[in-house]
Structure formats: C-alpha cells, structure tokens
C-alpha cells in the first residue's frame, strides 16, 4: 500500500467540496422530486461571489463563503419564482437554460476575467475546513429532512395532489428545497474557487451539472448517506482509473452504467447508514 497521503488528501478534499452541491441536489431531487441541470450555475454564482468578497472587499473566508451561498440562494429564489409553477419536466429544462446562461454571462464579464478565468484567488480551502463544513452540512440537512418541513417535501415528491389535499403548499416547499439546495451549491462553488485559487466559467459547464445529478442518482435517490458515498466514489473513480490512460473515461462510463444496471436504486437505494443500521447489519449474519 503505497498511496501517498498528499495525493489521497487532494482527492478527498475535492470529493468533500463536491459533496456540498450533491447534498443540496439530493434534497431537491431525492427528497422533493425536482430534477435540476443547472446546479453548476449556482456553484458558479457562489464561487464568483465568494471570490469578489475576498479579493475586492477583503471580507474574511467564512463570511465570504456564506455570502456566496446566500447569493446563490437569492438567485434561486428569483428562478424559482418564475419556474417552480411549471409542471413536470419544464422545471428541469428551465434550470438547464439557467446554468448555461450563467456560464455565458460570466464568460463575457471582463471584470471577473471573462473566459480566461480569474487567477490568484486566496487559497483558503484545505482538507480540515472541508471536513468540518461537510459534517455541519450533513447535520443540517439531516435535521431538515427529519423535521416537519422535510416530511412535507417527501410528501410533495410522492404525490403532489394528495399533499395539496392535506394542506401542504407545493410552491412553498419546492421553493424552500430549491433555496437550501442552491445555498449548498453556492458554498461548494466558493470552496472550489479557494481550493484551486482559480475560477473559470468553463469549470461550471453543463457537464458539471449532469455530473452532480449522476452522483445523486448513483448514490441513491432519497438518501443522504448515498449522496455522501456517491460523491466520494464518483470523484475518486476517474483517479483510480488513471492506469487506463486514453481509455479512462470510457471505462468510467462503463463502470457507472454497470453499477446502475446491477443496482438501479443506486448505492444506498433510499436507505440511510446510521449507528442503529450498522448494529442491525452486524447482528443479522450471526443469526443465520
């Protein structure tokens, strides 16, 4: 076993950064039933806002991250106001358009460096910060899901009409879910910018959005543990496959397809890994 910790730490940090938008998307897609292909757009907003706060306004790191998150959240409110009333797939298409629009706007705003990117951002994100932020993020999202609001979101996912009948406001819960999810994506974007020390609109392309959705589905819809595991596995997978050189991404795609066929419900399949679940798991084999 000669894995260098330095290299491993890099991958884990990146996985931890992607975990935030994935957790947000998990709430939106896995628990509220709305698909989004524009979360890279929210990451971009968060990333660029954080960068502006830190370099131009000299605000410290953590407040900048939060401002980045809130800005993304605010933009998602505007988007949600316009599109959340749309039924079915229309919302998904609207987010797709939004994500691309954000990227194209950033590519042409020379103040942020345009398509050439924005180098020289302060390097504040390290492994420890990412782990701490991830733990806080997981705890918050867990509490949201187990609260009354979370149950209402799940009700919206399961059956819109029935939940309306029992008095749940569809719009309100979809909006809450979208805003929390955008906040997570925004903070994730801020972390990415301060990890790389560089932002370029190209980083937040449509491919990034689809990757996030793939991770959520791969991990298992409606499972926080699944999203966490999915983020780690799918960020690490391309690195693990480095020995395949030119064929790496082909193998990556094939591996994802294979796992999805073998386990259509995703890694966790809506289950959560908690302490009691581990206890059950350990008990069961001994019974047999």
């Amino acid at each position: 076993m000669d894995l260098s910790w330095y290299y491993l730490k890099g991958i884990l940090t990146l996985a931890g950064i992607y975990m935030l938008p994935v957790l947000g998307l998990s709430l939106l897609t896995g628990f509220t039933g709305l698909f989004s292909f524009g979360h890279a757009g929210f990451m971009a907003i968060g990333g660029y806002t954080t960068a502006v706060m830190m370099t131009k306004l000299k605000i410290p790191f953590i407040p900048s991250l939060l401002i980045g998150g809130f800005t993304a959240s605010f933009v998602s409110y505007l988007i949600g106001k316009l599109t959340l009333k749309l039924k079915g797939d229309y919302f998904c298409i609207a987010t797709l358009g939004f994500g691309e629009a954000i990227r194209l706007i950033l590519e042409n705003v020379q103040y942020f460096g345009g398509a050439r990117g924005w180098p020289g951002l302060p390097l504040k994100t390290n492994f420890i910060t990412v782990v701490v932020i991830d733990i806080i993020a997981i705890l918050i999202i867990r509490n949201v899901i187990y609260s009354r609001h979370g149950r209402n979101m799940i009700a919206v996912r399961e059956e819109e009409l029935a939940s309306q009948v029992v008095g749940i406001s569809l719009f309100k819960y979809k909006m809450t879910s979208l805003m929390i999810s955008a906040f997570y994506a925004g903070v994730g974007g801020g972390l990415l910018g301060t990890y790389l020390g560089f932002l370029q609109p190209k980083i937040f392309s449509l491919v990034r959005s689809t990757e996030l959705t793939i991770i959520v589905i791969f991990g298992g819809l409606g499972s926080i543990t699944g999203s966490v595991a999915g983020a780690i596995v799918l960020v690490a997978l391309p690195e693990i496959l480095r020995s395949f050189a030119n064929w790496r991404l082909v193998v990556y795609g094939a591996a994802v397809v294979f796992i999805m066929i073998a386990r259509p419900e995703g890694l966790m399949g809506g289950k959560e890994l908690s302490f009691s679940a581990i206890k059950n798991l350990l008990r069961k084999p001994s019974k047999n």
Partner: protein
Amino acid sequence: MKKRLLVCLLCLLMTVSFALSGCGKDNKNSSTGETVKIGWIGSLSGDQAVWGQSESQAVKMFFEDINNNGGLLGKKVEVITYDTRGDGTEAVNAVKRLTGQDKVIGIIGPNASGQAIPISSVLEEMKVPDIATVATNPKVTVVDGKVKPYNFRVCFIDPYQGAVAAGFAIDVLKAKTAAVLYDVGDDYSQGLTQYFEETFKKKGGNIVAKEGFKSGDVDFRPQLTKIKAANPDIVFLPYFFKEVALTTKQARELGIKATFMGGDGWPSEQLLSMAKDAVEGSFFVNHLDFDDPEVKDFKTKYKNKVGKEPELNAFLAYDASLMLADAIKRANSFDTEKIKEALETTNIKGITGLIVIGKDTHNPENKDAAIIKIENGKYIFQQKYRVQ
C-alpha cells in the same frame, strides 16, 4: 440481504481501487535507484485530445532517445503521462499524484492555461518545476507582477502573439483598417483579440468591426455581413482551424476580399483540406517555420514512430523536454530546487527557435514568431518577426 449485497459491493470497490492505484508503482524516492521520473499532463481525452496525444508522444520520443544514449546523468528516465480531460480540477489531481505519489522531478504540460494556472499552488507546495507547452495566458507564470517560482513555459504569450499579428499587418501588409471576429466563450480567442486590438490601435490602425460568436456555431454569415459592410483591409480570426475553415469559406462566399490573419490555432493539416481556396493568401502567426531543417528532422522522426503528422503542440512539448533535460544536466543533480534554478538561466536552441528564459517572467524572452502564408494549398514560411 440488500444491505449485505451493498456492503459486498462497497468492499469490492475499495479493494479494486486500492489494488489498481497501487499496482506498478514503486514509491521510492526518484533520485535513488536506476530511474528518474518525469511527468507529463494534458488532455488525452476530451475535445483537445488530438493535441494532448501528440504532445505525450513527442515527450516520450524525446526521453526514449535520451535513454538510448545513456540516459540523464547516468540514469534512465521514465515518463509518466496523466490525462486531465481539459479540466482544471483534474489537472490539480494529476499533479498531486505526480508530485506526491510518483515523486517526479519535473513536469511538462499542460497545454492550456485553464489547467496550468490552478496547478501552481501544488507545484509551490511540493517544489517541483513545471514547463507548460502552449499555455499562452500571461498569468500562467506571473500574477499581480510576481513571478510564480515553479511555473515556466516554452511558448510565447498571447500579448506577444496578438502584437506580432497586429504589427505585421501594419508594418508589412500596410493595413490601415482591421476587423476582428472572435469566439466570445474561449479564453485564447479573447486574449488574442484584446492584444491585437491594443497594438493595432497603438500603431495607428483602426478597428472597424469587432464581432463575436460562440463555440459550436457553424453559421457566421450575420457577423460576416457586418464585417463586409465595414470593408476592412484585413480580417483577424483568432481561433481554431475548424471554425477558421467555416468562416473563411462563408466570408469568400459573401464576397469579402480582405486578407485573413490568424494565430497559432490555425496550423493543421485539416485546415487546408477543409477550407481549400478560401484560406489562400492568408497569413498567420506561428511558433516555428515548418520548413526549417531541424523541424523537418523532427517531423520525419515523429512520423516514423507514431505514423501521423505531428500537431503543433508536439514541437513545443519536444522543446519543453529539451529545456528540462538541459536544466537537469546543468544542475548536475536531480534536486528539484536546483533544476528550478537551472531552468531560470535556460539559454538553448530548440526546434521552435532560441529559448532564453527571463528570470522575472519565466517566459522565453523575445522569441521569434514565424509568419506563415498559405500559398497554393501549402504553408509557406515568410519571415521571422519580432515586435519592437
């Protein structure tokens, strides 16, 4: 049952991952033992794969030659190549792997500024020098007036290339007016446009039209119609050959008679077969003269080995290898700090011209640019040109 299946699956994944990442890597310090390791990163997959693959072949070819002639300071060189699929975050991972796990003594690549900029923090942390091949953004080596200690490059930079094109247009072609069509979503295209405009105006020329398009577009007639109305002497097209072929064809169809000019995104065998007559009589700025005897030597050697014509990147990757090997020889050591210091005083003749690294910029200073004209479906070298 399901849970157990899941646990099995996870275990399997973990085992496979560790087995794969561990295989074939001896983690000895590279300066001990029989071999030293040198890394290359770039796009082996994705939309820039053509260039990346050509680069990695050239680097491998160079060090194979060195190994056949007794190696570097008596040791064999092993080249490790990693794919970045054109993505900055992947480039960071790849460099972490090269420096942390493989313990390379120097890195060649990547071929784009978007990847070369984010890796500098890793290089500084691990103190390993990197020579970028065609990352032409000035900020790859210098940010806010400070030079990045471990980032070098072998190509000239965008301001220089843009300035050369503008200077040549005015001084040699005697142009008074120019129009620019550029890719608004491309960093390279934006950079060239900006510096072309600056120099052209400074030298007394006039930019009469500036139109943008978005990568992936195939119809440029709306922009070209506006350019035609402005009637410029030259039309500057700072982007890659595929779109260049489309635009030049459509422009000639619309009856634009102006001379076309471009940058180092042009030279490719495919441009000539795609655009045919449309690019006839056009000029572009290049890193080298294709007919130079040394360049020809390299071309035949590459073709014999790989079976394809080398792309432009291959020449620069070859020169980057040359630069690194020269620095190691002069440092007479595999210590990365000493190699970095030796790189700062590089003064060698590569196949793309004289490479003299500036200590404060880490760029090759005053590298000659080659002006190439397309005549009778061939790239004809015109002259070396340098901006004063």
